[in-house]
Structures are given as structure tokens and as C-alpha cells.
């Protein structure tokens, strides 16, 4: 069982089954108790996930990799790294993720076994309503 501390509204949604919480791709996930019913319109934004096993860790990494917003990694050393997770290489004990941090020229590589928690802090840029808004505008014009 994975621990999830809060969603974007600050509601506690802890102790939910990881398999329910982290489908891949991540856009299909429900974190908000009063959010949209269509899974495609739901996002991880605001969630904090603490994986408790290697299997859970891999699943959360896959979801973070598909997330189009910044995240904050909380390491076991208590260091926190914020940025965009754009890559993951899963190769047993040598597995790592790569992040672009704001203001840093190159990517930073973080071994997976050092990760304690995932904070989905940044707005999910792929969860917008731009298309619906545009269609609505065109309909009103006609």
C-alpha cells in the first residue's frame, strides 16, 4: 500500500491502493474527490506519493515520466530536487531518472534507489481546456 498525502485541494486521500492510483499514463488518474468524472480530465497535480516497494517505485516513476508538469523529488538524504522529469532508464540497481531543473544548463541524473517521495508540484500542462475553449468561441461566433 502506498501513502498519498494530499491532492491539489489539500484533501487527504491516503492509503489508497497504488494500482488504483497510478495507472499509466498518468492523465487517467483520479486524485481529486470532487474532480471531473472523466478520467482523461483528471491529473496528479498536487499529489505526494511515497512508494513502499521497488514495484511501486517503478510504477510511480513511469507516471512521473508521463507527467507534463514539474515535480519535486524528495531524496532519502532529505535533499529535494525540483524540475521536469524527462527520462528514466530502468536497469536494475543502476536505474536512474533525469531531470531538467530551472536555471540549470544540463540535466541532473538521480539514482532511483535514492528517491523517497514524489511531489507532483507543477501544473500539468497537458490537462488544459484550450481546445474546448476554442470550439466554444467558434460556436458563439456562428
Amino acid at each position, binding site marked *: 500500500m502506498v501513502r498519498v498525502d494530499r491532492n491539489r485541494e489539500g484533501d487527504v486521500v491516503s492509503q489508497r491502493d497504488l494500482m488504483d492510483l497510478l495507472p499509466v*499514463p498518468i*492523465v487517467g488518474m483520479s486524485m481529486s474527490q470532487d474532480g471531473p468524472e472523466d478520467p*482523461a480530465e483528471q491529473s496528479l497535480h498536487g499529489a505526494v506519493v511515497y512508494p513502499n516497494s521497488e514495484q511501486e517505485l517503478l510504477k510511480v516513476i513511469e507516471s512521473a*515520466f*508521463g507527467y*507534463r*508538469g*514539474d515535480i519535486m523529488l524528495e531524496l532519502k538524504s532529505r535533499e529535494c530536487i525540483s*524540475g*521536469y522529469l*524527462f*527520462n*528514466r*532508464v530502468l536497469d536494475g540497481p543502476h536505474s536512474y531518472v*533525469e531531470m*531538467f531543473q*530551472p*536555471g540549470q544548463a544540463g540535466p541532473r541524473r538521480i539514482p532511483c534507489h535514492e528517491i523517497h517521495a514524489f511531489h507532483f508540484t*507543477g*501544473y500539468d*500542462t*497537458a490537462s*488544459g*481546456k*484550450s*481546445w*474546448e475553449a*476554442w470550439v466554444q468561441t*467558434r460556436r458563439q461566433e456562428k
Partner: protein
Amino acid sequence: MAVPLSQMLTVTSYVFSQKLKGVKRYPLVLMLEPLFRCNLACAGCGKIQYPEHVLDRRLTPEQCWAAAEECGAPIISIPGGEPLIHPEMSEIVQGLVRRGKFVYLCTNAILLERKMDEYTPSNRLIFSIHMDGLREEHDFAVCRDGVYDVATRAIKAALKRGFRVTTNTTLFSDANPPRVRAFFDEMMDLGVEGMMISPGYSYEKAPDQHGFLKRRRTQELFAAVFAERKRRWRFNQSPLFLEFLMGKRDYQCTPWGNPTYNIFGWQKPCYLLQDGYVSSFRELLETTAWDRYGVGRNEKCRDCMVHCGFEASAVEETFGSWSGLTGTVKAMLFPNAT
């Protein structure tokens, strides 16, 4: 003929040299994405949804040239993002042309008239203008009114200055064949060298998730669009790929044919799917599990018929067998033969 002889000869000699060397997987077109920032937010695009600090990142000219040399493909396509936003784009293009590459600069043309002075006409530089149909369809697809008129004005200006100009068009499920045919007429009237056309790919991250074509519907649509094909329509792509779109041929995807390099590195496995990144082209070729991708192998590939996966398959058939070569000649000379 839509593609100049010099370009055809370059591609032909490149393919034969790869075959003589016994190279099993070789790239035809490098998809070079120097930035993801765009001045439009098109409904069917899944390329630009990133945090601001990622959109601010750009490849340097040196990185672009190194990728082109490492990859070795004779053709470089520069999509994005909108390439003309990149302040060093003309330098990047110049360096690629100097290296003997044919460069397709894919642009929505909003900035083209303003930036045109930075470029020199060359038979190796092609402005590939994003046009998704006639005025109504195009402005709807790019989610901004007036873009069609800006683009057509830029096309005329570029042609007048002696540039090679083509169009690239993505068709979605709401495409109307008579309107698409009228669009072909209009582009030919403008005087473009040729047109490129492809069905849209259903990006998971695209805002409009309802407009993407399924495989059968794609074949029906393109069969209707190309029925009684007019002689005056010129297409800047393989004739066998057009037959594939119409359902006359069946291909498996060739994802390594159009490898992608961007600010994250070399993208696995193709231009459309993002399954991770590696730091070198060689690593891309050697470490990608290619047999996990393609129609019937991967759910995400099920309905894909996009040019970046199948154009290389068509070219491979052309140069891989006598039947492919004769089929290509036949398709060029008698496009309406059943």
C-alpha cells in the same frame, strides 16, 4: 515531378550505399526539434505541453550540426515548436546546408515574412508551410483566425524571392474530401513545389482527443481524397506512401527511418512516441527494442499511419525490390490506376 532531380539522386545514392554496406537500419530523415516553444497551440498537437523552463530551452547550432553529422541522414526536417522563434535558426540552417543536407524548415509561417531576409534561397533549403486545409479548416485546426491568410501571403513572398516552398498538411477525422481537393487546387494555384500530407497521430497530450483517425477511416478518407487524382497535384513524398494511405498497400512501420533529436536527446522509438532518451544515435539504434513497436505490436501504434513511420517503409520497398521499383514508376505515371 515534385522533388528536384538533384534531391532524388542524393537520396537514391544514399539508400543504395547503405544497402551495399549491408546496413539493416538506416535513417532517411532526421527530425530535428531545436525547441518546443510555439506561437500557436494547435488542437491536434501534443508536442508543446511543457513547463515554461522547458519551453525556454533550445538546442545550440553546434548541437544541431553534431546530431546531423552523427545521424548521417541526407534530409533534415526541422519541426518543433515553431523553428522561426529560435534566434539562431538561420545559422543552424546555413550550417546544415553547408554540410550537404536537404533542409525542410517546417513553419506555420507567422514569422516567415519578417525573418525571410535571414535566409538565402538554395536548392537544399525548403520552407515547408503548415497548412491544414482551406481558410476555414486551417484556422480552426490551428485555433486562431487569420493564420491562413498570413501563411498564403508568406508563401507568395517566399516563392517570389526564389525559395523552394512546400506545404505539410495533417488530416483529422472531420476532413471533407471535396474541400481537401479544393485545398490541393488552391496550393497548386499558389505555385508551391509540392504538398506533403499525412493523417494525424493521436498524441495522448493533444488538447483535442476526438479528432484522430482510426486506420480504416484513414484509408477511406484518403481513397476519397485521391480518387481521380488530378495531374496538376504534386506531392513531395513517396508515391507508394500515398498508395499505403489509400489502403492499396500494407506496410509495417520503420521507426528508425525518421529518428528524432531534441533538447532531451535522441528520442525512443520515434518522432511520435516518447519512450525515453539516449545520448547518441548509435545508442538509439542499438538499445531500442524495435520489435516492441509497430502495428500489431504496440497498442499506441495501432492506428498510426503517419509519414514519419511509413514513408521510410515505402522508400525501402521502392529500392528493395524490382516490384517496388516498378510499382513506384507505375504510381508516378498512372496515379489513378487501380
